[in-house]
């Protein structure tokens, strides 16, 4: 089948999509956008978090066909390249919240969404909002710092 959607502001089309494919597969393998990561395939780890019509979703749980005609924003679409990173991306770098980085794209989208909804979250708010994003490297302390810094900037 054919799937057409607006991805990072651009209309994109994927042909010969097998109906069992996820939005994540289409983004990564058919549209050349591997930023969203596949780490669990069942919506537990949040590494594949992207915006679908403005709401954060696990792209591994969205069937490709469900994205047809809709708008997707991935981590690649948040900043405008190396020159201009989003404040969340900058904060992750400044605080050392990136180690292996596999969880980072999903977390950045999740934090971006949190700060859009709540510009000054408390620590319990941050923890609750990011409970669906697993990180195995950092122990989350520097991610907390990153969110606080991004909120303050």
């Amino acid at each position, binding site marked *: 089948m054919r799937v057409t959607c607006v991805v990072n502001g651009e209309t994109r089309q994927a042909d010969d999509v*097998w109906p069992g494919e996820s939005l994540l597969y289409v983004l990564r393998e058919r549209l050349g956008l591997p930023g969203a*990561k596949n780490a669990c395939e069942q919506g537990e780890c949040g590494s594949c978090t992207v915006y679908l019509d403005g709401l954060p979703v696990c792209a591994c749980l969205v069937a490709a066909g469900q994205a047809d005609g809709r708008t997707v924003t991935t*981590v690649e679409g948040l900043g405008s390249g190396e020159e201009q990173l989003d404040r969340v991306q900058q904060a*992750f*770098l400044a605080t050392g919240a990136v180690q292996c*980085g596999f969880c980072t794209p999903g977390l950045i989208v999740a934090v971006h969404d949190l700060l859009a909804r709540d510009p000054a979250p408390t620590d319990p708010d941050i923890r*609750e909002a990011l409970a669906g994003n697993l990180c*195995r490297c950092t122990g*989350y302390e520097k991610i907390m710092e990153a969110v606080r810094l991004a909120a303050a900037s």
Partner: protein
Amino acid sequence: MTTLTREPTTVAGGVGTNAPRPDGILKVSGEFAYSSDLWADEMLWGATVRSPHPSAEIRAVDITGALAVPGVYAVLTAADVPGAKHYGLEVVDQPVLAAGEVRYEGEPVALVAADHPETARRAAARIKVEYAVRAPVTDPEEALSRGDLVRHVPVHRFAAAGGEALTADVVVTGTYEVGMQDQAFLGPESGLAVPAEDGGIDLFVATQWLHVDQKQVAACLGLAPEQVRLRLAGVGGAFGAREDLSMQVHASLLALHTGKPVKMVYGREESFFGHVHRHPARLEYEHGADRSGKLVYVKARIVLDGGAYTSSTPAVVANAATLGVGPYDVPTVVVDAYGVYTNNPPCGAMRGFGAVQACFAYESQMDKLAAAVGLHPVELRRRNAMTTGSVMPTGQIVSGPAPVDELLALVRDRPLPAPAAGDPRERPGGVANTTRGEGVVRGVGYAIGIKNVCFSEGFDDFSTARVRLSVLGGEPAVLVHTAAAEVGQGLVTVQAQIARTELGVSQVTVATADTSVGSAGSSSASRQTYMTGGAVRAACQAVRATVLARTGRSDALSLVDGKVVASDGSVVTSLVELLREGDVEETVQWRHKPTMPLDPVTGQGDAHVQYAFAAHRAVVDVDTELGLVRVVEIATAQDVGKAVNPQAVVGQIQGGTAQGLGLAVMEEIQVVDGVIRNPSFTDYLIPTILDMPPMEVDVLERGDPDAPYGLRGVGEPPTISSTPAVVAAIRAATGLALTRVPVRPDHIALAP
């Protein structure tokens, strides 16, 4: 000969600074290419058929159903492996593809390559393997009695000659168990194999040690090592799980067979079968002390379940044995550690590597002893704390700083966190809103651990660095090239920092690791900053000597901001000037001081290079009715010798502590009759941001004179003592014995 008399001063972006990660921008913008992100024209996807049985004879394999699936390019079995049929890190015993029998659930039996990953999976499901199922051996004690021994390491040391009877005024005993933990890196096993024109293979993979992969892959493919070229793809965490091979040989076989690039990417479920795990252990301890709490002897018997194949079990057993009494002065030690073969999942390297299991047991014992002699747990530990000059149970003298006493005092003296506020999210059970505070008890626990850094027991441990100094765009520039695996820990940052400090050049590029330069050894054993850092420093020093020799001067010169500076501070010339004759490149192989094998009977010998120490204090709130635990805060102190990148050091300490907390209260691969019951992130729980508390970190810098910049390996120690500290805090809250990790709610709520 030109000599440098001045110590390198702090250079912008150099050693001791929080230099940013060179891969950071790529990682936050989604552009960093992990091993699962690779793509090539006409690429095929590989899939693996795995045994559903922990033990079975293979009677027949029928691949015709898979071959008939449109889009399938190859179906391979053991008969198609052209070279060595087995591989292994220490012992070559693991089949590339099973032939005749399978010895654990998930053992690879056949491979498929197809034009779509789903096609490959469906074709794999059509391969018919006829098994004659056998009863698996799953009890390590039974394995031991059958003689299925991987290794026995005795460490026996007696205060008096002749081996006196073990007696003391105060004796405490205990038997402890550690469940099977998974490394649970987020980036599953994956890579791309590309067939080359010379009949060889170019392999892009996430691994911890390119050269040990190269050696094993080449042997199995029947190729010369130089025909198997590995390049490190982006690594999504490792923690030991990438030390053994996973898809490397399989993807290469499929690529050579089809003549097309083949990508293999494990899903999360397959990943649980695709790598080794932390050894489950049973540990019996007896501690004898005088009435003041001074240790007289420790006797221990440790059994580690190595599962179906050897992997790194021999070295894990040695660690458990040699580090088995902890960072304490113990006059008499009788430790016997055993690793056994069973039909359980293979176990091998995971952060902490044998020291984790032992630490849970000996620290539990120290708490028990403190209670028996009526001392605070920290006071008991301080009375027995080893110091510089202490003698290990192996007879090895601890030559470097050993601030055990100071680390314990640091965590003890941290202010305690405030009582829980009213927010239900800060109570055990969290948003599930299972308590309003009734039945909730707070507890505080302490622990300290010891870890060896670098490879031990006489292993020829080295790293190789190639450093090139040239002029780029009118400015001096350095290219650092090693085969050391950046797995997330920040080694790429550290290599650049060292080059900036040694050569006084700000523009440093670290080339992607590959096998075109000599081996760096593994990114394991907390060794890479020590070893590859040491190699990069040595190569930079060789480059500096060569380039300074071009001045023709014999006085002391140093390199500062691209200038050559004399000892009086005057500028002699510039690097750009000196490099007009051409670039300078040096390749250096660097070794730490040699170690010795352990005596096979007594376990005596200077087997380790360096010891590292970390202490933890955990504060927990326990809902004693439901058995739910909330870790409120963790304070930790660690001696890192020299914090080459303080921000990265703290990140390692916090991340390692989190993995220790996971083992304490959450993480266990549930194995029943050799079968994994929870191979998913829905059922194997790693700490989320809700499970992790704030962490207070003290970093000590007590330089080790034998190590580059005085540094001490950082990665593993925080994982080791975090587990027993959390459990000690739960014991303090509940009064329960809690002899097994992870502690489950039923251990608390349903305790007799």
